[in-house]
């Protein structure tokens, strides 16, 4: 199902934020939030983007959609380079890519009815007259498991799970090909989380949707993704299909990340590889391999030279000198 022309193809994407200080707001440094990442997503495929806070996964998701402008690199939607398209030319591509946010409380306008919220993309893109729009919104409501009668209500009248359904309906309104989910189930209770994950998977099968699923929750990512990219301090350290990542992790960071996940089964006794220390600041990331400060296997030249992302087995990419 992969390749042909991927829905999304990202090459050497970088996003640096200037650090300004002092009276003249002079730039004194750069936050290397995303520091040259490449990946692709095929039709009907889910790529899980995992990593800990500050690794740049959310920034990557936003830069892909050009919600923030990338510093360098390229983003292709269905073969077309959209990295430098002016606003107007970008619009048709915007219809094909949507985002679902983590926080269902702050991502919905509290002063709009939820029917208007879901219908707004149709209105903005001038795709349907008022009456048609109501019908389409009603259909979307049904599809995501809400009652069309609730269209006149306001966001505060809904529970967290229902609000996330509203966010999904809004993302679906324009019939996108790609949905970026930025921690879409992280704020939900587990019983509700399952409902939303199932909905996302059903929608994917029905509409051949592609997902860029950004999350720190490895259990959820394992469940939903076909392939996974693991990020650490702005770079992808490992990139492979889900099975390879979980069965034969190659990068020491992936290994540690997996061993740190608490498994909900008391009969499983695992040897934990507990990492020392914290993630270094992305303002002055360590030289060489970003991970060497916490890596139990680090050698001298890991501190000097950054390892490239190499394909060590078909489809399995790792950036580590020791593999």
């Amino acid at each position: 199902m992969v390749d042909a022309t991927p829905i999304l193809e990202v090459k050497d994407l970088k996003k640096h934020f200037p650090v300004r200080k002092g009276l003249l707001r002079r730039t004194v440094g750069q936050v290397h939030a995303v520091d040259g990442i490449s990946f692709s997503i095929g039709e009907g495929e889910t790529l899980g983007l995992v990593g800990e806070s500050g690794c740049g996964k959310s920034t990557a998701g936003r830069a892909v959609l050009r919600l923030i402008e990338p510093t360098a690199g390229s983003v292709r939607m269905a073969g077309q380079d959209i990295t430098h398209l002016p606003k107007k030319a970008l619009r048709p591509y915007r219809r094909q890519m949507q985002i679902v946010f983590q926080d269902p409380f702050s991502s919905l306008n509290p002063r709009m009815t939820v029917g208007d919220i879901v219908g707004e993309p149709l209105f903005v893109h001038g795709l349907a007259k008022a009456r048609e729009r109501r019908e389409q919104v009603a259909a979307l409501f049904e599809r995501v498991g809400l009652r069309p009668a609730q269209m006149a209500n306001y966001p505060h009248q809904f529970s967290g799970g229902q609000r996330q359904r509203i966010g999904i309906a809004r993302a679906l309104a324009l019939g996108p090909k790609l949905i970026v989910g930025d921690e879409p189930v992280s704020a939900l209770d587990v019983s509700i989380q399952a409902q939303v994950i199932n909905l996302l998977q059903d929608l994917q099968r029905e509409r051949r949707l592609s997902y860029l699923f950004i999350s720190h929750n490895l259990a959820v990512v394992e469940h939903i993704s076909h392939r996974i990219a693991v990020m650490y301090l702005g770079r992808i350290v490992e990139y492979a299909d889900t099975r390879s990542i979980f069965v034969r992790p190659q990068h020491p960071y992936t290994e540690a990340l997996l061993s740190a996940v608490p498994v909900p089964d008391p009969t499983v006794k695992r040897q934990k590889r507990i990492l020392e220390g914290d993630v270094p600041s992305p303002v002055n990331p360590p030289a060489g391999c970003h991970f060497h400060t916490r890596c139990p296997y680090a050698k001298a030249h890991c501190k000097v030279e950054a390892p490239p992302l190499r394909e060590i087995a078909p489809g399995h990419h790792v950036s580590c000198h020791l593999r």
Partner: protein
Amino acid sequence: MTPQLQVENLGTWFYTRHGIVKAVDGVDFHVAAGETLAIVGESGCGKSMTALSLMRLIPDPPGRIVSGAVKLGGRDLLKISEEEMRKVRGNEISMIFQEPMTSLNPVMTIGKQIAEALILHRDMNRQQALKRAVEMLDLVRIPEPAQRAREYPHQLSGGMRQRAMIAMALACNPKVLVADEPTTALDVTIQAQILDLIVELQREFKAAVILITHDLGVVAETAHRVIVMYAGRKVEEAAVGPLFAKPLHPYTAGLMKSIPRLELMRGEERRQTERLQEIPGIVPPLFALPAGCAFAPRCPKADDLCRRERPTYEEKQSGHWAACWHTDG
């Protein structure tokens, strides 16, 4: 094992304009020294309110502890005066919170915050207390503890702040440690460090730990015994092994089936198309609970009896309690 802490029929109600909200409704439990009791449940189930009730930190008004007893060292903490309670809090029973940034004082150095408890409860002078504070920071494995003791909370990372919280909580060697979602705000690799630390320090200090969490993975790896709460009440209680092997309450069973279980990592096969099992619906608002079992509207086994009458909480198997009419089926 004699229980270190014994909680009986605890009731904490909130008086709101929607009516009375029974956040904690008749909860009993006990914890022994060196034991970890996990209280699990989803938002609004009353687990955090139970923890705050033990500490007598319920905001009053609107909340009030309306019934029950919290027995620690032969005393009922709900009966003693506020002045006496202050001598107990942070000394015999202490608490760590989810968000260390909001529970630490931002304008006071870490060292002084830890020392405060020692000066208050252990009659130490400033110098002794500060020295002990540095020792505590070392114990929770903060590198360069003497240096860190002079720093402010914002200068520490999230994991470090949680370590400092733990150092503070354990400074007076409490009998009971209440940990309310201690790792929820942390990244997984940091979570592993903190859980590891709590387990290790518990062994050393022999404290009874009450771990409040929503994460079944954390429960499976750290708890000895588990209480599952739903809508302010206990619905199930057992040792961690039997609870995960054979949950008796449909809510517990539903929770366990609704989480992805990391099959691949555990060397099991998985079908790509597998769906998670959902628990339909949402938790009912606490001021409008159904007449019978609170879980009945979402329960696959519910019948007329469940909707009419609240199930009794009883010992279904040795050491395994549940509140359900249909545990045999």
